[in-house]
């Protein structure tokens, strides 16, 4: 095949430079809140009051990393980080594994049960969490699913809707021939699923994993109601608790903890940006 790949010629008009400038200013406005928090996390307590929130961490106001040390110690932050990590990783892995299997069953079996499962999942996506918050937390309590190490089962239950929906959408468009060929070659359904179907589904696995991670990592209300707040605090719970429990909140420590919370997410985002944005688009198209 001849190489006829045309190089796209981009003609830039003067107005495009103006647009670039406007967008650049807008971008600065967009990053500013995060930058402001970073600045404030480096300041002494007296320089973080409402009237001085915009001042820079220079001169006497500069406090080095003292707020970070103070915040991490006082809030038991590393513990929270661990709980958040355990919950997120276990939930997302479980959701991806179980829901992709369930979705394959739903998309390949033509029965009333399969249809019911599918429509129940779609339905569950619309239901607001407040509808089930009390009964769900009581159910979790009585089944002892109230520690960071097994709350993933609750997340699987409440997050199944979106995941099954997204996987089914993709799997319905997959050609049956490959699976049938594997079957004739002597694979049982489990082997077909893990050796043939799952590898093809990889793009959807990534997008679903990203959407579910964003949800579980940032979720506040579900862990608050299900976990015992005295024993286990995830990061969002910790920040809310810290805020509520002190008469005068120690803003410096608070800001430092917020920075520690968002920096890893932003770094992760910059590294796998491409997948995250594709995941969002894929999620939306299925929706």
């Amino acid at each position, binding site marked *: 095949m001849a190489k006829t790949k045309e190089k796209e010629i981009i003609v830039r008009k003067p107005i*495009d430079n103006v*647009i670039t400038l406007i*967008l*650049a200013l807008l*971008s600065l406005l*967009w990053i500013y*809140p995060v930058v*402001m*928090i970073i600045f*404030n996390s480096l300041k002494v307590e007296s320089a973080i009051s*409402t009237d001085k*929130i915009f001042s820079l961490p220079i001169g006497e106001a500069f406090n080095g990393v003292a707020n970070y040390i103070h915040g991490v110690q006082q809030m038991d932050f590393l513990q929270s980080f661990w709980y958040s990590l355990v919950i997120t990783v276990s939930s997302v892995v479980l959701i991806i594994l*179980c829901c992709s*299997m369930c979705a*394959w069953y*739903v998309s*390949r*079996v033509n*029965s009333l049960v399969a249809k019911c*499962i599918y429509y129940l999942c779609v339905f*569950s996506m*619309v*239901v*607001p*969490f*407040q*509808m089930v*918050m*009390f*009964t769900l937390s*009581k*159910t979790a309590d009585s089944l002892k699913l109230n520690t960071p190490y097994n709350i993933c*089962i*609750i997340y*699987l*239950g409440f997050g*199944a809707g979106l995941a099954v929906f997204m996987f089914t959408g993709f799997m319905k468009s997959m050609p049956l021939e490959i*699976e049938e060929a594997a079957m004739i070659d002597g694979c049982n*359904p489990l082997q077909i699923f893990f050796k043939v179907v799952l590898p093809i589904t990889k793009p959807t696995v990534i997008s679903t994993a990203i959407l579910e991670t*964003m949800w579980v*990592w*940032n979720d*506040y209300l579900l862990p608050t109601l299900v976990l015992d707040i005295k024993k286990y605090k995830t*990061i*969002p719970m910790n920040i*809310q608790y810290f*805020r509520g429990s002190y008469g005068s909140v120690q*803003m410096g420590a608070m800001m430092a903890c917020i920075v520690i*919370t*968002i920096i890893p997410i*932003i770094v992760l*985002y*910059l590294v796998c*940006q491409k997948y995250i*944005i594709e995941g*969002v*688009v894929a999620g*939306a*198209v299925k*929706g």
Partner: protein
Amino acid sequence: MEKAIKKYWIIFILPTMAAFLIGFVWPFIWGIYLSLNKFQTLKKVEFVGFSNYIKVFQDETFLHAFWFTALFTLVSTIVINVLAFAVAMLLTRKIRGTNVFRTVFFMPNLIGGIVLGYIWQSLLNGLLYIWDKPLLALSATEGFWGLVILMGWQQIGYMMIIYIAGLQNVSPDLIEAAQIDGASAWDVLKHVKIPMVMPSITICTFLTLTNSFKLFDQNLSLTGGEPAKNTQMLALNIYDTYYARSGAQWKGIGQAKAVVFFVIVVAISLIQLKFTRSKEVQA
């Protein structure tokens, strides 16, 4: 093949369905049942029929929260979608720095609602102080616009990504054909681009509508409902009824509120989908 898969149902669907039953189906059914009861602990549940629902509509905080939420949803849906679409239009012009801008605008989505609320509380209170205006906790108007700004900051990037994907799918031939026919830039936008990205508009309005209506974390952390429950939205009102009000009747009423809330959310979703779907066209 179907038969073979069916035999393996215990492995394929049982785990998900068991969890789904625990995490959704059972709490949902139980929740509907409890909305018809008066209870404080689960040991003493007393059937009271629909009287909880009557009390829901007599509760002024709920009615106020409803109008506040409705207004907020309307304003934020319009603001977010118009701005996200505008930015998406600019970013599909192949200008310099497109990728950087896209990265920056999307970033706030990764930060959780609780954290976002506190970031903006500090920032907005700082600004209000400079402008000599009442702080967020003292004025419902400021609280309202604070929530709109916060939601905009968070969601514009997300919707922008979806609009960009939609706009990139509009065939250049179609636009060229319109231009040859003498269409102005405005005509192209109105008669070609917008009809062609209608599926994206459907999704984005659906997402912004439901996200705004169900907003909880940001509401809790930015204003906490202050002053005097005036900026309380429905989700927070339900939570507050459940866990913060003392009195034997409130849990039942809270559950009834949740059922009402659920019905409203479903109704809005269905109406919206029907409305925008009817405007979609085939190229």
